[in-house]
């Protein structure tokens, strides 16, 4: 039986070789006289598509708006869209392709920490520039990533400040079992130690978990002042439904969520979450002119049943921030653009935002919101001033132990 399979293999390998060679032929020029290629990498399939598809829509909107307005440095933006397929290796692999084969001037995308961590070495060794739009666990500042979402001191710490202001001193922590919740809860615990607050429990459930009866009954029984919720995605639906079943109301025990935005509210069921709290930097209801224009443009393009959320807005901003930085540098070169980042200011839907060159994060205002009965989120508290990003929490004494 030796010859046949081997011969099969020969034929197959030849075909493969030809395919690969054919593929390698279509190198695109990254920047021409009329166009500039940028990459977009989001999970369009798999479990994360639920969140990332909307972010892609926001990026696409920003690109089209800029193109309609004359492009960047007189060039039309040509996006190359890649599917990260909810898989870190695919993110790394596709990012490598965007940088090496497509010569993308910059790349917008990523959602999970895992996808960002997977792409980080790719961007560092190819000297690319990634715009990452989601709030995250901090403890990172790569010269090849610009973080347009909040780091912990722009979301979690203000949320804790708010809860403390409201007189909530005992917290119940519930989160999905992955990096962001575990890191967030370490910060929360350190904060609680330093501020005489009490952590009554710290519970983790696997991603995609749907059985919360034990935890919700525990919350009903122990009656903490508030619940700090770092559950991800789908699990929130089950959690809030079952929390309501257990008889816990937002008046008795408010749940403060850091991963529930406008688009998750409908899936959770507005009735189940009305009155509970969220911590973000932007809401669809945020009141300023730029946001009015953004929400109108978005709903006009994608349908009036669509909502806008913080990660979408941060992704939308990142395209404009990149454009501003390119124009300030008068160059698409990554090193030039990076040098121009510090102090870039734009009027964004969340208000005026400024890039901090040292950390490559955005200086932004923290906002606590409350879900209303229409499924939108009303702002009920705002940080006194825009917060300078501090991904390693070096400015907080109580956090000293967290950095080792």
């Amino acid at each position, binding site marked *: 039986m030796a010859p046949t399979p081997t011969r099969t293999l020969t034929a197959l390998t030849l075909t493969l070789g030809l395919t690969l060679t054919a593929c390698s032929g279509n190198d695109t020029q990254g920047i021409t006289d009329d166009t500039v290629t940028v990459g977009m990498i989001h999970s369009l399939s798999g479990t994360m598509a*639920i969140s990332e598809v909307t972010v892609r829509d926001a990026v696409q909107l920003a690109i089209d708006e800029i193109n309609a307005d004359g492009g960047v440095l007189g060039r039309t933006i040509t996006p190359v869209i890649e599917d990260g397929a909810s898989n870190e290796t695919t993110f790394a692999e596709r990012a490598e392709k965007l940088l090496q084969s497509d010569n993308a001037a910059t790349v917008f995308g990523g959602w999970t920490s895992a996808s960002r961590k997977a792409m980080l070495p790719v961007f560092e060794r190819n000297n690319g520039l990634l715009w990452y739009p989601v709030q995250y666990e901090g403890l990172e500042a790569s010269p090849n990533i610009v973080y347009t979402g909040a780091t912990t001191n722009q979301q979690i710490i203000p949320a804790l400040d708010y809860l403390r202001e409201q007189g909530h001193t005992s917290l119940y922590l519930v989160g999905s079992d992955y990096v962001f919740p575990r890191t967030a809860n370490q910060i929360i615990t350190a904060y609680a130690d330093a501020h005489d607050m009490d952590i009554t429990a710290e519970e*983790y459930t*696997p991603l995609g978990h*749907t059985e919360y009866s034990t935890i919700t009954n525990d919350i009903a029984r122990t009656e903490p002042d508030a619940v700090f919720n770092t559950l991800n995605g*789908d699990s929130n639906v089950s959690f809030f439904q079952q929390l309501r*079943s*257990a*008889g816990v109301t937002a008046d008795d025990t408010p749940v403060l969520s850091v991963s529930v935005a406008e688009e998750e509210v409908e*899936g959770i069921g507005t009735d189940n979450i009305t009155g509970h709290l969220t911590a973000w930097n932007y809401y669809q209801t945020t009141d300023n002119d730029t946001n009015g224009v953004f929400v109108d443009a978005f709903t006009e393009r994608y349908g009036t049943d669509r909502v806008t959320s913080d990660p979408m807005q941060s992704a939308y901003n990142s395209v404009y921030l990149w454009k501003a930085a390119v124009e300030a540098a008068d160059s698409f070169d990554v090193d030039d653009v990076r040098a121009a980042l510090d102090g870039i200011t734009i009027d964004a839907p969340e208000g005026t935002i400024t890039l901090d060159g040292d950390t490559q994060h955005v200086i932004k205002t923290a906002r606590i919101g409350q879900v209303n009965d229409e499924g939108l989120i009303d702002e009920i508290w705002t940080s006194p001033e825009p917060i300078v990003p501090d991904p390693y929490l070096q400015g907080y004494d109580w956090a000293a132990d967290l950095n080792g």
Partner: protein
Amino acid sequence: MEALVNQLPIGLAIGAVLLLAALGLNFTFGQMGVINMAHGELIMVGAYTAYVLHAWVGINPAYSLLAALPTAFAVTGTLGWLLETTLIRHFYGRPLDTLLLTFGIGMILQQAARDIFGAPNVDVPAPTWLTGGITLPGDIRIHYSRLFILALAITCVIAIAHYLNRSRQGRRMRAVIHNRDLAAVSGINTRTVDATTFFIGSGLAGIAGVALTLIGPTGPTLGTNYIVDAFLVVVVGGLGRLSGTVLAAFALGILNATVEAWADASLAKLIVFTAIVAFLQARPQGLFTVKTRALT
């Protein structure tokens, strides 16, 4: 011990969900040996059927749940029947081929749901008559929707048992499971029986899907959350034994709830998996076994 008593109702509630998800597999996998990876997607189709009745057809939420149960049974049953007659019937006796085949079908169904209904979860409101719950001793609150699922699971089990033991078709089905050749020789049309079995198994997935809208998210990946657990229930129960599946579902539910009382949910899941592997060491054929008269 106190934890066990307190967690018992929660365990039963979890067990009922597992049971509903696994009942259909008891037919397609347990009785026909088809490792149907698309079972999770059939559950998902059932859930979306409930959504369509409520949001597109516009049936009042008070009744849409009840209307959705038979509709979903018919929709997913027909889908399963189509799969069986066009594809799966060529693969009996080759479990891994059916696994790979149905995995491909599952991928297509999942992406189709994403394209039709959008990637985000949709809201299927629970009927108002299911709001509220009862409080048990030990301050355990059980929601009416949980009781509804428990009642639904028990109803399904009784209906299936009745069908298998009392009806003519059900007896034919059992005859085919016990000895296909002898059944065929006795004049039973095994093709029809296979197709019917698959119809019922897939239909039960639809019912499970409708029930799951009461307690969890309704989205394209709804089914994948349950598929491994559902298979484990059938395996632990013993292939093809309804009583085994029922017992296994509640045992796993209670075990899960008890462990969760002192460990977090992630750890609980790990412990349950380990317990299953250890259990299968001791009883490789599950809790109950079907004595087949076929030569192996």
